[in-house]
């Protein structure tokens, strides 16, 4: 970034103020530097005088920053152009910005679908029981021939299978794990295979050495199959995902959802919220990316799911905790926006300053003091790519398994969990088993926490006395 030279003229400062872009929030370094180090040569002033008022107004606004990275760079561009070139330059900038907007004459305002497709809704029509060739009593059922079997038909957590809400009710199911294979990540796309990868890997329901609680022995867990999505449209998938999650959660079972990219967070959180409308939901969102961008041409993407949840009032900002932010998506304005809404974000900058232990306690304190049920939305990008490379939107410098597992376990033990989702895996980016194994381990941490809670082990940071100490002295 080119620095303005040290203060030489008042005119310069005045000019800077004229470009209202300089009057950015007080904490902006650009402002401070502009104040202290401004120099404008007279030729530049003359060039600006040659522009129309409309053009000067454009340069004064924040619009130029939509086509050029910073004010300083804009100054450089102005400085190196003669008046004729400058005219063209500003005119072109204005035309480009105008072209960003919707053009009624030439742009589709909606994506047309083919109503003549005979299977327009095929993928989401639920099969009426009467059309099944054989009847069965409701309740989860095993797909293993044997009482004890490793391998066989792969299910989440090696659990029994449930297909209908009646199965969940009859089985008094505590946790129903369902796949949502939407694959529209704004990064690498293979989230479609997230559910398959996690089913094919062991470890989701293992006994946990930290608490010595075996979630598979304490909780009634089922594999609830997958929910259909339209892999060519997030918008088209939203309603069905919402309905399926709502129907699942309405039975009293806690939904554990395996994505799928993070756009899916919008219908899942909305659905869980809708089950108990009077009870606010606290959301703990793990991820490198804040996903609260304003929506652009598409109604929903993985980059704006949080924006929609907040602006629609599904969750209030002061009930949103974010952990692990570090990606380039969030700008200064983004963090300001989050602050204004009361969002309790914890970036990796905070971790660097204060250390993970402090941040972890802060997150737990925030979740617990809200006194609300907690929904955990776990984007695998929160993990360092060294420990989970199969991430749709990987980002260096993330949290480790040993940092995340205790926090997830404690959240799920020390607060009532309304749901847990694990999002944005891209299995094809990991030729080994590591990503799938570590992803299952995160789910295991929450299942363990919930099992601990069911057994009354929800005090602060419970660890089993026999495993923390060999007891020999």
């Amino acid at each position, binding site marked *: 970034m080119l620095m303005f030279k040290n203060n030489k003229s008042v005119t310069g400062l005045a000019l800077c103020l004229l470009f209202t872009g300089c009057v950015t929030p007080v904490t902006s370094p650009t402002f401070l530097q502009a104040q202290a180090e401004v120099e404008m040569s007279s030729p530049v002033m003359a060039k600006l005088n040659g522009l129309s008022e409309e053009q000067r107004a454009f340069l004064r606004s924040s619009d130029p920053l939509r086509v050029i990275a910073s004010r300083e760079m804009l100054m450089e561009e102005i400085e190196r152009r003669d008046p004729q070139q400058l005219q063209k330059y500003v005119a072109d900038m204005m035309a480009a910005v105008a072209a960003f907007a919707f053009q009624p004459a030439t742009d589709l305002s909606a994506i047309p679908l083919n109503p003549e497709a005979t299977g327009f809704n095929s993928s989401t029509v639920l099969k009426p029981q009467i059309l*099944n060739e*054989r009847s069965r009593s409701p309740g989860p059922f095993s*797909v293993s021939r044997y*009482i*004890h079997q490793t391998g066989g*038909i*792969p299910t989440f957590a090696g659990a029994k299978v449930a297909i209908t809400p009646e199965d969940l009710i009859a089985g008094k199911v505590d946790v129903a794990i369902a796949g949502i294979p939407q694959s529209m990540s704004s990064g690498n796309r293979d989230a479609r295979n997230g559910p398959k990868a996690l089913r094919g890997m062991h470890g989701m329901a293992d006994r946990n050495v930290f608490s010595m609680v075996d979630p598979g022995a304490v909780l009634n867990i089922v594999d609830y199959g997958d929910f259909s999505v339209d892999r060519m449209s997030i918008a088209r998938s939203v309603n069905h995902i919402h309905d399926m999650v709502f129907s699942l959660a309405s039975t009293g079972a806690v939904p554990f959802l395996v994505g799928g990219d993070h756009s899916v967070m919008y219908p899942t959180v909305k659905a869980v919220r809708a089950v108990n409308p009077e009870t606010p939901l606290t959301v703990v969102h793990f991820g490198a990316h804040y996903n609260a961008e304003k929506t652009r041409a598409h109604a929903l993407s993985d980059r704006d799911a949080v924006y929609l949840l907040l602006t629609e009032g599904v969750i209030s900002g002061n009930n949103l905790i974010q952990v692990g932010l570090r990606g380039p998506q969030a700008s200064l304005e983004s963090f300001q926006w989050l602050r204004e809404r009361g969002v309790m974000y914890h970036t990796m900058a905070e971790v660097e300053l204060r250390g993970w232990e402090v941040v972890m306690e802060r997150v737990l304190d925030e979740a617990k003091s809200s006194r609300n049920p907690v929904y955990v939305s776990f984007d695998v990008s929160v993990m360092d790519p060294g420990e989970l490379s199969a991430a749709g939107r990987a980002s260096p410098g993330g949290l480790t398994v040993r940092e995340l597992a205790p926090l997830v376990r404690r959240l799920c033990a020390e607060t009532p969990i309304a749901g847990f989702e694990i999002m944005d895996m891209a299995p094809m980016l990991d030729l080994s088993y590591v990503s799938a194994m570590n992803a299952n381990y995160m789910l295991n941490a929450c299942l363990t926490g919930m099992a601990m809670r069911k057994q009354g082990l929800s005090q602060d940071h419970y660890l089993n006395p026999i495993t923390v100490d060999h007891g020999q002295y």
Partner: protein
Amino acid sequence: MKKIETLNTWRTALMCSALSLTMLTSPALSQQEAEEEAETPIEFPDSLSMKLNDLTAEQMEFLSSPRSTRSYARTPELLIQTLEKRSATEVKAYVEAMMWVAEQRKFVPGRDSDSIPLNVASPDFNAWLVRRPASFDPVREVGPIEMSRYMGSGGGGIPTFAGAPVALTPEDLIAGKVDVAIVGAPLNMGSGWRDADHGPLIMRMQGGMAGNDQYTQVNASRELNIVDYGDIAIDNDSTERSMQHVRAVVREIAETGAIPFIIGGDHSLEYPNVAALVDVYGHDNLSVIHFDAHYDVGRDSPHYISHGSPIYRLLVDGHIKGKDYIQVGLRSGGPDEAGYKWMREEGFKYHSMAEVERFGWDYVLERVLSEARGDGRKLYISFDVDVLDPSYISGTGTPVSGGMTPREAIPIIRRLCAENNVVGFDMVEVAPALDPTYTTALHSAAIAKACLTGLAMRKLELTDPHYLNPITLDHAQDEYHKENP
């Protein structure tokens, strides 16, 4: 010779000794015996006769045997050279040393144990194969279980072979009038790289077995009742211990009239698979065609069964005869000449890659098909994926260069399954860890699909030799095929 499945009980041990007697009177079954008969003794030059004077008759007999001395001197000429370098005392010591080693190598009662004891006191001795009683799960009408909540092509999400519904008991197969039961057998004791226990998992996850076949326009998923029959329990600490149970489950499938498709697991599985079908269909009613880079007739191992010896085991135990066997794709280090001679004597119809190199694939294809047709018997296909070249199938435990291509394998399998009465099929040695891509699973699935297609074609009576759908053969926009026959 003991049968594997009878190692556990006294009653059957008595049975087996009776059978052993029968074995001894039957035609020579071991390569060893054949070689002994054929061996010509080494003749030593007169220059050595002084040194050899001190040897006993037994020592002289040993020294004169090429087979006995081969381990120490590769050829008789090299043996003579070695002896000429040594003094008479040294020669005697040399022969004594060789004979000592020969003794050490053999089984010696009292010194060596002839079995590996199991811990019969363990309360979980059989935990690995006790079946889940029906009463453990909600009551359900007997028959295949549909896993999907949706109508259309949306799957349940839980991966199954060929996207098919699940069946767990023979009653399910009968009630569902099941045509094909695809069952996994994750046996992981192969002598090469090991990951075959993940064969069934990758085949379920990869998909590709189901649906319409381009070449014939036959859709096996529509024409046949196919189920995923789960996995067969395996003891991955012992091939021997796993064999009985595999045979029992394959047999129970075949007894219902369904065709077992066994997805392995290593090639030891051929033993219980074929034995099970012989149990159901009877001796002399079954031919077996074995696709493999290896001939799997390993003999003379301390272990009765491994993936290198299922065919030998089947012969020795009397389930099948050599003349009932067709081998396709051989090209590994073995068999050697003696092995081939033995196969010839036993009546095997083998087709190595040397034959393909000389005569071309199409020639060998037609020869194999006419052999399989034979007298119209029932046919079992045992398909080791390493018959394909490693560039297509890298995910396998013992790859060998110079193998078949998918464009050769798919048509031959499709035709075998369409043009014969196939009663069983296995696909073995898929080891996904060795293939970081999807390729191994993709090709393996295509070959399994080719057999399912063939079975469906048979149901539709499309059994003419090399049937292909006319509409896919020719766009019919001109008379090219007529003008260029």
